[in-house]
């Protein structure tokens, strides 16, 4: 299998856990081995410990929730310890016989009443803390928020960047780029079943409900790649419906926007040109769009700049040539039940197709 070959070069389980800063998007075209390393590192960054964890907040909402969560943990720990200590003393205290004296009963009545009163006070405190922590969640506090639409599909995400100029509207499947320090309003919709948008480090769990538009907002304080995952069970491949949020400084973000607005790059080599022909004559074209070409179907994710993304198949695979080959030839063995059928090509056609798709940066 092609996947197997690939494990040798760009392993999909990166050996070295990188704690390196977020990968920069490749602006120069590195040589192949270098690129493999970069994509592997990128994948490591997108799927590594703490990169999808509420305990590791990187935005204002996530941080206020984490603080609130620690406060809850502290309160609950104290309550738990107090109750358990009372309970253990009640069990273990030495007594001659059962104690039915009126004094004991009166004392117990008093203690139960005090405990109940303390419970009420603690709960009021928790409720107040919850309201305070939740205050900023519903609408962004700062000005200059940008808005991105997210449309959920079984089992991938489509982020749509709108603009007044229709030709500047573009979509970025499974990869949400945001500027650092700017609130980003997410307008959430679904094309099929209910999904839920959730990036734990930045927050915003919000369901994508067909027939409705829901809103949430996120903000990243530092550049980085933050992984998110669908949080509402949405069928077969709910487990493989991840997304990456790439937070970058404003200038880099603007550059990315400008690049994404462009139609697909023209193929350069003969092989790539042949690959484009293969694409246009194969079943690929019935589902995928590549702006600037005749491929215009929006059943599956748009491929205009597919090679610039960090991952394939909604965070399932690192974006490397071997994985792409495995995915195109038999995606069902990787993500069973997804909507893409297996494809078979003549070897030269297949190499050309891969070269073309890999050129769509």
């Amino acid at each position: 299998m092609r996947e197997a070959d690939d494990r040798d070069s760009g392993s999909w389980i990166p050996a070295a856990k990188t704690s390196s800063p977020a990968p920069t998007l490749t602006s120069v075209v590195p040589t192949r081995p270098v690129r493999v390393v970069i994509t592997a590192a990128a994948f490591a960054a997108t799927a590594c410990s703490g990169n999808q964890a509420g305990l590791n907040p990187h935005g204002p909402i996530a941080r206020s929730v984490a603080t609130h969560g620690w406060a809850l943990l502290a309160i609950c720990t104290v309550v738990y310890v107090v109750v358990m200590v009372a309970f253990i003393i009640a069990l273990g205290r030495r007594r001659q016989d059962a104690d039915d004296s009126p004094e004991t009963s009166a004392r117990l009545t008093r203690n139960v009443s005090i405990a109940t009163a303390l419970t009420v006070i603690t709960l009021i405190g928790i409720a107040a803390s919850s309201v305070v922590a939740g205050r900023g969640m519903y609408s962004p506090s700062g000005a200059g928020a940008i808005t991105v639409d997210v449309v959920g599909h079984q089992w991938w995400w489509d982020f749509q960047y709108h603009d007044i100029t229709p030709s500047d509207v573009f979509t970025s499947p499974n990869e949400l780029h945001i500027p650092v320090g700017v609130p980003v309003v997410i307008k959430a919709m679904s094309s099929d079943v209910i999904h839920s948008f959730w990036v734990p480090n930045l927050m915003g769990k919000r369901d994508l409900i067909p027939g409705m538009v829901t809103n949430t907002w996120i903000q990243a304080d530092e550049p980085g790649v933050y992984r998110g995952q669908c949080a509402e069970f949405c069928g077969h491949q709910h487990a493989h419906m991840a997304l990456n949020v790439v937070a970058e400084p404003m200038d880099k973000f603007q550059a990315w926007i400008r690049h994404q607005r462009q139609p697909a790059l023209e193929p350069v080599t003969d092989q790539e040109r042949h690959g484009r022909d293969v694409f246009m004559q194969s079943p690929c074209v019935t589902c995928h769009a590549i702006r600037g070409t005749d491929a215009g179907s929006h059943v599956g994710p748009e491929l205009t700049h597919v090679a610039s993304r960090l991952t394939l198949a909604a965070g399932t695979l690192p974006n490397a040539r071997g994985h792409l080959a495995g995915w195109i030839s038999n995606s069902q063995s990787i993500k069973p039940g997804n909507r893409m059928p297996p494809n078979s090509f003549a070897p030269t056609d297949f190499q050309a197709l891969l070269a073309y798709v890999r050129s769509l940066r």
Partner: protein
Amino acid sequence: MTDAMALERRQMITSADQERLRRQLADTWYVPRGIIGWFSVADHKTIGRRYIITAFCFFVFAGVLAALMRLQLAVPNNHFLGPDLYNQIFTVHGTMMMFLFAVPVMEAMGVYLVPLMIGTRNIAFPRLNAFSYYVYLFGGVMLVVTMLMNTAPDVGWFSYVPLAGPDYSPGKRADFWAQLITFTEVSALAVSVELVATIFKTRAPGMSLNRMPLFVWAMLITAFMVIFAMPTIVTCSSFLLLDRLVGTHFYNPAEGGDALLWQHLFWFFGHPEVYIIFVPALGIVSSIIAAFTWRPIFGYPAMVMSLVATGFIGFGLWVHHMFATGLPALGLEYFTAASIVIAIPTGIQIFCWIASLWRGRPRFHTPLWFVLGFFAIFVLGGLSGVTLASVPFDLQVHDTYYVVAHFHYVLLGGSVFPLIGGIYFWFPKFTGRMMDDGLGKWNFWLLFIGFNITFFPMHILGLEGMPRRVYTYPDNMGWNTLNLVASAGAVLLVLGGALFVYNVVRSYRWGLAASENPWGAETLEWSVSSPPPTYNFLHVPVVEGRCALWDRSADPPIVTGIRSDCREVLVTDVMDAEPVHKAEYPAPSIWPFLCAVVTSAFFIGSIFTPWALPVAIVPLAVTLIGWFWPGKKKERRRDEDAMPVMREVRA
């Protein structure tokens, strides 16, 4: 011991009468034999026992499914189960645990114990009781069969639309789920009606509402919750079936339907459901603590009011399952407050139990150990529940393993631990034999340690961002170790479960014979032989205090004037249990079973065609006519119509 001596003296004096009465009652309240007889039984104890055994069979089945899931999740990127099978397994696990184990087993405990605890001869509407059991059994078997045939529902125990709707779940899998709900609705509603009628109208004289055992209170409140909660799920699962079978558009947003309508209806049932499972367990805990401290539960009025409050507030929490759906903020905060408020009655009960333990001298037998385990686990689960009531925190951990940890702490810790304790406690009453206490303690520690190793790490997994309902997860997310630990804990849980089954089987065959009241407990079921005779009580007792047996005078009064040559029971009034009437219960009959067969065939048939309804009407009518065909009443003499009297029997 003066109690026992007095009883003995009385028995000597009237032994000939007693013997005659005993024979006549046994004759009247016979349990039919033979194959047809087996399907005709309408005795609450026999049906209750079958219910409990069946529910535990489903528990084992669903537990095995859980073990398979833990096997799959032990390592990342595992290929042991594919997404199709995994989704079926987690759906069937949840559905079976909720609808076929937890609710029915609690109602079954009520079916068996409530008539004994309140001093009557059978449950009200005994034939309906038999019918409810068979409907439940057939529904459960249907789900097991679909699982074994790899066509089980795969859309989660909550079956959110549109995923469960006709467009995204072609085939019949989701229909099996929806129709299973119908089966369990029918049986749960039937049992609840019986329990309410039994508790309100057939309590022994003297057992006014303020003397009712806490277990009976818990069952009463549970029954009312079922009666108010189940109709909404009847509605929403019927809408789903209609959408799927005849093309209505209740949940289809493209045609003006609403996907969120399902969630409101489902959780309006689904949240009370949690308390339907949990409240009976509170009754069990109270029974066990009272018996093993030899003291009445501290603060009876507070306990009762807390149960009632839980029953009410439980209906005002459903939106906390929907915090992520984008409902208005003000509304969400209301539900935060309501979800937090329900911690108050639960807290009061915990404090009262601690006070009871403080006051009495606990005897550490297996049932009490399970209650102690309940404390350690449930209090933690309750606290994590309070954190989930907070909207911002919930949005972070909603649909993650944190929630999985939370509800296993409250459902296993809050419900299953007391239930298993309750089985150890009442096993002598059910079977006439004691369960092995030594094995019981092993059983407890295996389950307790296994439980915590399995489920505690899931809190952390959730905080580290692991979502629920995923059949696998990537490597390198930092989730590997904790998942492996959780799976290892599951091994202990399986061993604990196996030891429980072994102890039950072994004790049933070779356990020590049990006396009437081996624990010295307070409630009326402990005043009759173990297992109880088919007619329960030789004489309907008169209750003299809140703790029926502990407050009993040396020569307790009894009720006379109830016929022993027909299935006559005493009917009392709701508040004070004053005798008001006598009613005759129907004899055993095969018709409820036949009716259940036809009903089940209709339910299953209507998965495939709407024509099942018109076709089923005729046989259904036949079985119902057979069921309600008036039997021959015994001729009444005039003096027998006189009201029964409470007679002081003095030696």
